[in-house]
């Protein structure tokens, strides 16, 4: 068991190393002309860094490979991909718009926090100390650009194609876990009481034995691949970090086996 675990750990660490290496290469490379401005590279580059950070975290953390907590980290990955894909459609304008909106939002929240903190005698210096950073950041963007507030669904709709497919396939499942809605709780935190005298009530249950699902690691790899592909195209960085790369690595150590759908018995 230890040997198998070491093999698995080695394969996952190798994939994480590839992710980091491809990110380092990408940030030092020449970006496509339409994104190659200071503002676009700043915002999209940082979001790419975030996406790869998440991907590494999911791939290396087997405790996330289950329906209980995996979605909590995968949903931000889905949103980050949609955000990047949407920003790339009009990078200069949209990067400025979304950054200004977020910075306005946080400055507003800090101000409200200060007012409320006075009545509740709470220390909010950790938040207020960041105000100069946010104000300085705002000055980097064109003040004539209007703040843009947009949700993931709208981003996916504007991007279309793969983004819509991803949104429709994943969003509800991941969001239900993040927000702990009834459709998630009922499937994963309750079990039907077999006693008919209890009218089949649903009992709170909690099993520490969790079903490991490689799909979480593979989906994280897929999001990383799609994100690289959205910025740099499908060849190069994206193909080096593709989900197939991870699948092949896991196949090589016997952790996964492809099912040949065309297999015919003799």
């Amino acid at each position, binding site marked *: 068991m230890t040997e198998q675990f070491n093999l698995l750990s080695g394969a996952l660490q190798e994939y994480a190393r590839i992710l*980091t290496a491809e990110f380092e290469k990408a*940030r030092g490379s020449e970006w496509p002309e339409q994104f190659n401005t200071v503002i676009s590279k*700043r915002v999209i*580059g*940082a*979001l*790419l*860094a*975030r996406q*790869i*950070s998440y991907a590494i*975290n999911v791939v*290396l*953390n087997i*405790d*996330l490979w*289950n329906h*209980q*907590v995996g979605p*909590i*980290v995968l949903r*931000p990955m889905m*949103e*980050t991909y949609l*955000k990047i894909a949407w920003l790339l459609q009009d990078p200069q304008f949209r990067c400025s718009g979304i*950054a200004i909106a*977020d*910075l306005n*939002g*946080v400055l507003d*929240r800090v101000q409200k*926090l200060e007012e409320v903190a006075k009545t509740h005698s709470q220390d909010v210096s950790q938040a207020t100390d*960041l105000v100069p*950073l946010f104000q300085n*950041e705002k000055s*980097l963007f064109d003040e004539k650009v209007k703040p843009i507030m947009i949700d993931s669904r709208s981003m996916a709709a504007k991007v279309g194609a793969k983004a819509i497919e991803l949104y*429709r*396939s994943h969003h*509800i499942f991941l969001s*239900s876990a993040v*927000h*702990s*809605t*009834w*459709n*998630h*709780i*009922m499937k*994963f*935190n*309750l079990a039907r009481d077999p006693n008919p005298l*209890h*009218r089949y*009530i*649903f*009992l*709170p*249950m*909690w099993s*520490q034995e969790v079903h490991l699902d490689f799909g979480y690691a593979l989906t994280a790899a897929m999001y990383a691949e799609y994100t690289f592909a959205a910025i740099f195209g499908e060849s190069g960085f994206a193909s080096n970090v593709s989900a197939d790369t991870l699948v092949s690595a896991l196949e090589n150590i016997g952790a996964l086996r492809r099912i040949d759908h065309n297999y015919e018995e003799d």
Partner: protein
Amino acid sequence: MSFYFTAEGFVSVGQSYSDAVRQDFENVISNWTIDMSAANVYSVMGGLLSRQCVIATSFARSPALWTYLTAPLFLRAMAEVIINLRWIALDAETRVRQFMLYGLGQERVAIEHQRSLAEFFGEQPANLKAHELWLRSQRHEIFTDVYLGSWSGKQVKDMADESNSFADYLLYTSLGSAAHASWDHVLQLHLEDPSDENSQPVIPKFDLNPEFLMVTAKVLRDTFLSFVSFTGQAMQIFAYDVLMDLLKEYAKAQDDD
């Protein structure tokens, strides 16, 4: 309390804490008499408590998650659960139904999404049938409405105000930037030098911080306390104190070393 910490050292702390939470959970649930006339209340409130325990202990058992990258995501999810639980408790019969119907509506949306993908690609997703059967086991699809906006019809702030959950609302709202990768959050973590206009993006080394574990444990303790208050049980919750003792021992062992 200051720490010098390693991930390996904290694994046993997380596991021991998790065992203590399980004990508290089993005590509380086994001592809660099922009211068959309010079966939905039992299922929803018990389910929310179970969910909170799962999130907290999954976090505790994996020290690699105790970082600025992932901890905010877990904490925000937990803050939402406790606000929901407390708000539902104020008028359980009505609000439990709202909670359930909203969730079923979400399932219907998921099914419709999958059907539209099936139409587009010309083949059914593998799990579409499972989703349909699951929904049908709860409520016929034609009677399942889809609700837009929040499940309660209120903002989280209003729910927190009504249920006296100001601190949890602060936690929830302050972590929104991390959860949604807002620029104010991303620029702090993923730019080498945010004050430099030409700063390179960076994958930082995320330091492990056991204070995140302490906060999740506190939220879980508060969830348990709200739950036993709702059910009218006179029960003690031990897991939080167990964790604090474990961390003190760990810190002392580090100092001795």
